[in-house]
């Protein structure tokens, strides 16, 4: 069984984002970029499926400019076998990405597609679900455990009240939550080896998809900031303030 993993290049999660002075967007010039943390978990899960003999090949795909090949190589260093980059301007909309991924799935015929549940830049949490819908396949979102059993994949999902387990007919789409696994660090020899693994570059036109969105960004602003309040010296003072000043208890 083949596993397809879709990944996204995003701002490094340790970097605090700045808004451009003209409020047109966030400022990504000279900012450290990295693989989206949820995508890293997706790659790790796929590689573990291969190591345990469930998967035979792990293919990584990303939609973006040439710079995202850095993240595809990073995924290969973690154990993915080959990569596909679909050339597009950075920041394509989720629906276009889902349409492109659907075409890749039709060509590659994976048994499982694993994606991160959300990218930490746009925070949309939708591409995996959209892909599943376009393919008319089942989805196991926010996964904390993935088990392949015959023709089915059993996915434990993190839901608001606890955990839910679903059984999905394969091929199926899984999106990862934080606790699914802890991604490994790439070893130097693997980083070197990754440079020689095959990486194919495609254009959206190769798949007959036009990357265009009817959703436009009007402006970006900083959120309202909260002012720091006061320090209290004791529990008694705290209780007094909460009771008589804030009136919340």
């Amino acid at each position, binding site marked *: 069984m083949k596993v397809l993993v879709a990944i996204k290049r995003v701002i490094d999660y340790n970097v605090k984002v700045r808004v451009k002075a003209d409020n047109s967007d966030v400022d990504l010039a000279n900012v450290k970029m990295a693989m989206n943390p949820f995508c890293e978990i997706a790659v790790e899960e796929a590689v573990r499926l291969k190591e345990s003999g469930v998967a035979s090949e792990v293919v990584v795909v990303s939609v973006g400019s040439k710079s995202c090949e850095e993240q595809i190589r990073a995924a290969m260093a973690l154990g993915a076998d080959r990569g596909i980059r679909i050339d597009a301007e950075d920041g394509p909309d989720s629906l276009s990405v889902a349409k492109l991924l659907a075409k890749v799935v039709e060509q590659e015929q994976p048994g499982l597609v694993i994606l991160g549940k959300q990218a930490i830049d746009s925070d949309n949490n939708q591409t995996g679900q959209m892909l599943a819908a376009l393919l008319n396949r089942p989805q196991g979102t926010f996964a904390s455990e993935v088990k392949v059993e015959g023709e089915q994949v059993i996915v434990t999902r993190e839901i*608001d009240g606890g955990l839910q387990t*679903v059984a999905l007919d394969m091929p199926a789409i899984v999106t990862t939550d934080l606790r699914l696994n802890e991604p490994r660090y790439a070893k130097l020899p693997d980083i070197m080896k990754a440079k020689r693994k095959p990486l194919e570059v495609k254009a959206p036109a190769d798949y007959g998809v036009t990357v265009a969105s009817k959703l436009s960004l009007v402006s970006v602003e900083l959120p309202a900031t909260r002012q720091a309040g006061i320090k209290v010296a004791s529990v008694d003072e705290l209780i007094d303030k909460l009771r008589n000043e804030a009136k919340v208890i």
Partner: protein
Amino acid sequence: MTTLVIAEHDNNELKSATLSTVTAATEIGGDVHVLVAGSQCQAVADAASQLAGVSKVLLADNSVYEHQLAENLGQLVVSLAGDYSHILASATTTGKNFLPRVAALLDVNQISEVIAVVAPDTFKRPIYAGNAIATVKSEDAVKVMTVRATAFDRCATGGSAEVVSVGESCDAGISKFVGEQLTVSERPELTAASIVVSGGRGMGSGENFELLYKLADKMGAAVGASRAAVDAGFVPNDMQVGQTGKMVAPDLYIAVGLSGAIQHLAGMKESKVIVAINKDEEAPIFQVADYGLVADLFEVIPELESKL
């Protein structure tokens, strides 16, 4: 212009997140309909019919919707979508699960986690873990969006909308519910509580959370945690408050032994009053706290509990 709100419920009870989503729908303007899809969920439909501003409740009562499987629910909503200009769900794990399917099948993008309605086609939503707020405009024929409950007040009750059954049984037949493990707690639900007490890595262990449970029980509060406390294995993930956990906005938020990482602040900074208790006076949490107490939590939490 008519908006369809998909109700959040457990077949018995309408969840408060739906009340906030109805408020967002009312702000868009036009009629508001609510879809209750579930199994033996007449009581939920009756509750929805009493929401102020709702003119019609669609009830799809069928065993295929019992567990709100995204594959089935998505198909149902799409089959009803023709009559609507806007389709809204709460940004809960249920809404986030099925609504993007609806958007994709309607060939439109989804607008996620809306926090403000600027115009019927223009909305505000947080990006980069709430470190920036984007205003987005959609030219899609149908606006499909999830709504962040903490950003909108709950709508009033006292209405009396008609309840009509919608018949279609959409069973995609490709996914099955196997089971669930829901956290059983006597305390209020984290996202609906008016007081939340949260612990961070400073709690030191899962056993020490007992201090917070005691305090919470005295105050009628829910208990949350930072991602660091969850990652350290102190408490289960469904207690996590933050970008990757739950969004809360209670009247009072008490952060205990918690530094206040950006991703945690993203989940609680809309709280009305924030109290921080931490022995490190440099902790970033103090920058957003209305009242800060620099002290050892193991001394002051029992003291606070006994004095309340």
